[in-house]
């Protein structure tokens, strides 16, 4: 259930009630038909405090024997299919929630698709808003406020969740929580685009994962609610060769994108951790969180692994006393939200880890905090141990019993916890040639393999410019 088009491997893979394979209400699409039988679809344009209206889709259970809680997802990736007659094929987490009577709300964020206003990537949190000033936090607040007052048969409790960019919007929505917001689950949230998520790690620019994403993201179709975006035409399947021939990084804009992604150009204009990037770091702002928080991430998430770990920690540090828990599984980006989660690359986890997560971790979390279901015991860290392939629970993360130890580099490629006996001048060396960079994967692709974080490194180890 990849967002833009299933054929395009794209950066922030999302499962917001995924784009259907066929017009949704056709009899062939049993899931959409099921949804139409059990839910009523509404589309609203909800006014924000500055008058801008945000397009919001609401599915309400037809079962009105009691009031139900709402779960909100905010997304930059469209709510296709649009139109109250067209129902989605609910996949993954949405399917689990839909079969358990939740009001499912999804919103185009400010400036995207059906929503008015101006879009801005990872819009900074404004801690000093005037009465009419807005940011993603105030948009979330105003949306929840409207929903609890206007959606039929809601029980006054709201939850939020989302993966990747929607995870970022979930984290933004937690700050100074609306009183109705009882539970939030940022999943693979973006925390800082210079330090560790998506665009840069420690200041090093991530090229191949992002190039096509920002090309696609910036497209302005004439009919954006119905047209699909087009991927960049690389004219070769070989990304290593393509990006090497591209030459210096600046050519990505001047020769290839040619200004078609203004954001890409803007990012290249901020090559240090300047005020631009510092303003886009959500971590210092995660204060006054008054809802339960369950942050979710994948150990093998190539896009946003830094984000969930950092947002869990920052939330923990700045909001003592709230329920704030961490779930980490053996997943690639968003892998918990759909599919079985039994395999990644050449690894076989011998268990359906994603299904387990959705049924036994995520659903009980929302049932407890939104419906008052008592059958839930918060686990501070519910984490999958790779290598042995088993779920484990700890009352802290990292576990309290861990002992920090240095693995030293010794002569002849040996590693050891013992301090090396070599002298001050001992070294290993290699020649690094930018004309022949070390490939990060042997797969031939212009995108990236979701499983590269677990790929076999034997080919790298055999190169003279890799120290082993």
């Amino acid at each position, binding site marked *: 259930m990849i967002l833009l088009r299933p054929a395009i491997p794209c950066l922030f893979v999302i499962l917001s009630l995924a784009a259907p394979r066929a017009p949704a209400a056709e009899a062939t699409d049993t899931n959409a038909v099921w949804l139409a039988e059990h839910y009523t679809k509404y589309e609203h344009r909800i006014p924000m405090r500055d008058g801008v209206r945000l397009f919001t889709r609401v599915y309400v259970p037809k079962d009105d024997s009691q009031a139900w809680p709402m779960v909100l997802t905010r997304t930059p990736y469209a709510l296709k299919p649009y139109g109250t007659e067209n129902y989605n094929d609910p996949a993954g987490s949405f399917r689990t929630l839909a079969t358990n009577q939740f009001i499912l709300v999804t919103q185009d964020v400010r400036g995207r698709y059906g929503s008015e206003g101006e879009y801005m990537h990872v819009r900074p949190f404004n801690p000093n808003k005037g009465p009419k000033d807005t940011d993603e936090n105030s948009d979330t607040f105003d949306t929840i406020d409207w929903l609890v007052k206007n959606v039929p048969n809601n029980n006054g409790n709201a939850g939020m969740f989302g993966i990747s960019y929607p995870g970022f919007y979930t984290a933004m929505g937690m700050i100074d929580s609306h009183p109705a917001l009882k539970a939030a689950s940022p999943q693979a949230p973006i925390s800082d685009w210079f330090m560790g998520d998506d665009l840069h790690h420690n*200041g090093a620019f991530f090229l191949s994962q992002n190039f096509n994403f920002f090309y696609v993201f910036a497209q302005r179709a004439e009919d954006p609610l119905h047209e699909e975006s087009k991927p960049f035409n690389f004219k070769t399947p070989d990304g290593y060769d393509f990006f090497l021939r591209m030459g*210096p990084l600046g050519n990505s804009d001047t020769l290839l994108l040619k200004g078609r992604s203004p954001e890409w150009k803007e990012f290249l204009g901020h090559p240090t951790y300047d005020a631009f990037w510092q303003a886009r770091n959500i971590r210092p702002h995660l204060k006054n969180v008054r809802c339960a928080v369950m942050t979710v991430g994948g150990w093998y998430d190539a896009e946003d692994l830094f984000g969930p770990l950092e947002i869990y920690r920052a939330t923990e540090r700045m909001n003592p006393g709230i329920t704030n828990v961490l779930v980490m599984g053996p997943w690639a980006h968003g892998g918990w939200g759909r599919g079985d989660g039994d395999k990644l690359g050449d690894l076989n986890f011998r268990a359906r880890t994603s299904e387990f997560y959705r049924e036994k971790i995520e659903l009980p979390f929302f049932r407890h905090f939104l419906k008052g279901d008592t059958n839930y015991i918060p686990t501070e860290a519910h984490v999958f141990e*790779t290598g042995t392939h088993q779920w484990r629970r700890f009352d802290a993360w990292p576990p309290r019993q861990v002992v920090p130890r240095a693995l030293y580099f010794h002569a002849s490629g040996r590693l050891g916890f013992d301090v090396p006996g070599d002298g001050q001048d001992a070294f290993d060396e290699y*020649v*690094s040639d930018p004309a022949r960079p070390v490939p990060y994967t042997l797969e031939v692709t212009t995108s990236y393999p979701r499983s590269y974080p677990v790929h076999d490194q034997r080919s790298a180890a055999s190169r003279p410019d890799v120290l082993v």
Partner: protein
Amino acid sequence: MEEDLTFAGPLKASLHVSTTGTDADWVVKLVDVYAGDFPDPNPNPAHVAMGGYQQLVRGDVFRGKFRNSFERPEPFEPGKVAKIEFGIPDIFHTFRRGHRVMVQVQSSWFPLVDRNPQTFVNIPTAKPEDFRKATHRVYRGGNAASSLLVQVLPAGAK
């Protein structure tokens, strides 16, 4: 290894390095080397050989010019030893009995990460001639030891 070894928590790379250039990237990878007799998958349509498989557990990159400040990058002085320290996101991984723990260090990871010209320039406006070969050293003795800091979870810990 003769017993399982479990790491749980963040990693930290601590390197003493030098370069003949004035900037460089440092990629540190933690790898689980499977036992030679590790069974292949069954069925095995892709003909994967799992014996001696070097599974990446975690890798991350650091752009050397930021070693003292992310706001004010600094060149390396060619040939002079410099310390680079950076955090790497958490892992929770057990290296099974019979496996080996491996660390790989390299200075490119392409095209995942753009190429460091290895000369101290503003990379988004770098010219082709700024990209140069360089020899990088990783030191390992005395006060210049290099290591990967791990969090060891004792066996049986709850």
